[in-house]
């Protein structure tokens, strides 16, 4: 029996006769008839779904980050081990809890015992971890979700919420990630899923839903922060019988992965948000536009749609409300410009993803010329909580103009990489240093790049800024998707700005001249600077071009592309000057400033490996005025007039005796 099946003959629910109370009926019911036995049956079923027959649940985080850390092998080892010790336990592949730095993570949970989370698990450790947990011993665990005094070592292991990475978080969008099996609609329902949809369809008119979302102050989490309720209202008010709802799951910002994490770990939450949005805007057809480069996310979203259909949560007369909705996934072939709504619409229509001038906005003329709403994954994943809790409760956190939480991705040279969901308005310093643990390896913090290629680079002095849409914009960055790349003293800011320009130049769709030609001209200047070939008026030209491109481009890709250059010029002018006037790269990244190589005599063992590796015979062995075992000692010497700076000797020297000269 599954949750969708009827508990007994008295249950009135079937796909042909849908019922508005279906979800509550299946989790707390039955509601349609009074029967204690059926109630017990449902409770037992819920337990079986979560814990298997053995009352033991073993979860392995196998989202993309987990897999990259080796979760597949851990899963295999666990399966083999469980087959011996607890064959009827429930083994599940969950998503990522956001603490990617601790992957591979597994969680053990026996009914009645505290759940123990283990980090950096390898296949070899699996047996021991499992045995000790089953032996009522949690020492060695990374964290516990709760304590109840039944396990040995409980006091030595911190609670998950006490760990610095989790302590400051307010998890709503990613609350289920790493907790539930993303491929199981039943687990989502048991954790309160689809109750918001039930509430919206049963008790609220579309207008009331829009009202609630407006009152909650939800703003688009994909970039510009446009009020979601307003967007929905525009589509609702547009004339036409056919309207579309699109979920943007084409996360294209390099360095941001919150949408992948959310949709991989809890796809039904996104889908529930989408169904509510379609109901509110009056759409009968929905699309999930998901990037082919992130196959697991595409797979989980497609599966969620299939499952929801089986449960009568998609299709005709959803939960007896008379509301119909068909949803399907469209695989994006990959283009950054698809983040622009009109470009994405062109892509779904089968053309090159080129934006068009607005107005008309998609809310009046979108897909196939019909009114269309586009929201990204994270925005939609906020919707169920708003409907369940109500706008008032939801808007209690956040700042005056920006409500709720935001998921940020911490990556780059930060100690604890991963994704954290925190109230909007938290200062950057708390996010990077308290949650992220500061810079890796005790190096000096240099900057944080916020908002990807459209965002900006902020220095130490800006770290006390509360993060919200407005303050970031004033500081020269943008909220964007919420990707944060932390860089340290070893990263060259000029090279980083060049990297982003290289990205936006390549991703420019080519439709409008300022973006197509302007960015290319800017990139040429940046390349000159990083190659040590800059001209005296380059910075001035760069500024002029930046403002032309920002002012005259057709879409947000071009309008925001100069941000990385402008923000780095504003805060890191000295690094530009070092490249241009002092002919050096202070972070030792731009290779063109490398003067050459030299041999550290003390470390050279005279093995002659470098001599044979040198393609231009620039290295010779020189006799020293010392002897070893009666022979004169020979050491390598590089002739800078012949050296072509290929770096072969530097890379191959087994003793690290060859040093760079900057």
């Amino acid at each position, binding site marked *: 029996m599954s949750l969708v099946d009827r508990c007994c003959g008295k249950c009135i629910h079937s796909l042909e006769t849908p019922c508005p109370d279906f979800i509550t009926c299946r989790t707390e019911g039955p509601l349609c008839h009074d029967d204690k036995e059926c109630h017990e049956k449902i409770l037992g079923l819920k337990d079986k779904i979560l814990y298997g027959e053995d009352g033991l649940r073993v979860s392995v985080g196998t989202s993309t*980050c987990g897999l990259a*850390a080796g979760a597949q092998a851990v899963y295999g080892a666990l399966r083999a081990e469980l087959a011996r010790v607890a064959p009827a336990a429930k083994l599940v592949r969950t998503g990522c809890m956001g603490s990617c730095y601790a992957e591979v993570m597994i969680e053990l949970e026996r009914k009645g015992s505290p759940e123990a989370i283990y980090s950096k698990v390898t296949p070899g450790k699996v047996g021991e971890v499992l045995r000790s947990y089953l032996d009522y011993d949690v020492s060695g665990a990374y964290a516990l979700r709760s304590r109840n005094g039944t396990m040995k070592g409980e006091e030595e292991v911190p609670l998950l919420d006490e760990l610095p990475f989790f302590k400051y978080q307010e998890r709503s969008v990613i609350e289920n990630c790493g907790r539930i099996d993303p491929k199981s609609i039943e687990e989502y329902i048991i954790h309160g899923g689809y109750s918001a949809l039930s509430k919206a369809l049963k008790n609220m008119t579309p207008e009331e839903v829009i009202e609630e979302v407006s009152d909650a102050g939800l703003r688009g989490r994909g970039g510009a922060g446009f009020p979601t309720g307003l967007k929905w209202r525009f589509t609702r008010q547009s004339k036409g019988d056919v309207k579309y709802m699109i979920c943007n799951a084409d996360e*294209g910002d390099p360095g941001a992965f919150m949408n992948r994490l959310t949709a991989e770990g809890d796809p039904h939450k996104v889908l529930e948000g989408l169904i509510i949005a379609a109901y509110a805007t009056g759409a009968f057809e929905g699309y999930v536009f998901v990037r082919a*480069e992130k196959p697991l996310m595409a797979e989980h979203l497609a599966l969620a749609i299939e499952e929801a259909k089986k449960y009568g949560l998609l299709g005709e007369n959803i939960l007896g409300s008379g509301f119909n909705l068909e949803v399907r996934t469209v695989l994006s072939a*990959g283009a950054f410009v698809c983040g622009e709504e009109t470009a994405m619409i062109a892509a*779904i229509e*089968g053309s090159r993803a080129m934006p068009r001038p607005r107005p008309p906005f998609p809310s009046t003329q979108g897909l196939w010329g019909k009114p269309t709403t586009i929201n990204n994954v994270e925005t939609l994943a906020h919707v169920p909580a708003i409907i369940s809790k109500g706008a008032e409760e939801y808007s209690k956190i956040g700042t005056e103009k920006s409500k709720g939480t935001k998921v940020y991705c911490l*990556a780059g040279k930060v100690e604890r990489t991963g994704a954290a969901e925190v109230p909007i308005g938290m200062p950057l310093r708390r996010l990077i240093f308290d949650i992220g643990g500061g810079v890796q390896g005790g190096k000096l913090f240099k900057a944080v790049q916020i908002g*990807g290629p459209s965002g900006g680079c902020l220095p130490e002095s800006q770290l006390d800024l509360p993060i919200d849409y407005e303050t970031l914009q004033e500081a020269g960055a943008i909220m964007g998707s919420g990707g944060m790349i932390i860089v340290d003293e070893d990263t060259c800011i000029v090279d980083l700005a060049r990297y982003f320009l290289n990205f936006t130049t390549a991703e420019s769709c080519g439709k409008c001249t300022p973006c197509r030609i302007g960015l290319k001209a800017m990139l040429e200047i940046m390349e000159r600077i990083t190659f040590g070939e800059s001209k005296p008026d380059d910075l001035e030209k760069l500024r002029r071009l930046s403002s032309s491109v920002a002012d005259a481009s057709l879409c947000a890709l071009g309008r925001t592309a100069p941000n990385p250059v402008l923000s780095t010029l504003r805060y890191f002018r000295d690094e530009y000057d070092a490249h241009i006037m002092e002919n050096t790269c202070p972070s030792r990244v731009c290779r063109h400033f490398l003067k050459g190589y030299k041999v550290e005599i003390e470390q050279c063992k005279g093995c002659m490996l470098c001599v044979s590796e040198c393609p231009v015979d620039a290295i010779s062995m020189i006799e020293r005025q010392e002897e070893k075992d009666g022979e004169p000692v020979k050491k390598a010497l590089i002739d800078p007039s012949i050296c072509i700076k290929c770096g072969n000797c530097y890379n191959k020297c087994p003793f690290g005796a060859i040093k760079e000269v900057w």
Partner: protein
Amino acid sequence: MTDEKERTRAAVDEIFGRYRHSHDPLHSALIPLLQEVQDELGFLPEAALERVSRLLNLSTSHVYGVVTFYHQFRLRPKGKHLITVCRGTACHVKGASKVNDVLEEELGITPVVDTSEDGLFTVQQVRCVGACSLAPVIKIDEEFYGNMDPVKMRNILAVYRKKEEKK
């Protein structure tokens, strides 16, 4: 018509059969159709583009325009193993280019040649695979490798080559 072209055409026709009944305008099937054809053939040969344009009643130049616009499509055959190098920001600041240098050196990859001479490896650069926390990341076929560095890259290549030799 050569056998090669004939086979390509047949493959495209078979996939197209599944799109004929969709109620969306026919030309919207272009991208999914190309994706499936590429899945089947490994790349998009000229004959496939011609056939697709004929079936969807689009000009070949339009089809070519779409194919060259998106990252996913490739016009050249693929080697036995596909190495995907993530060039996202996190990977960039953590040294993805050094990992890529190893591939260029060991496999003879250049900006115009993306497949090693022995046909064993094709290297593609992607914008971001979203595993930023384990940067730099590469993927070989469906397998992910995190926290890469030049030494690790050389070792992994050696493992793959050894496996091939055994066969």
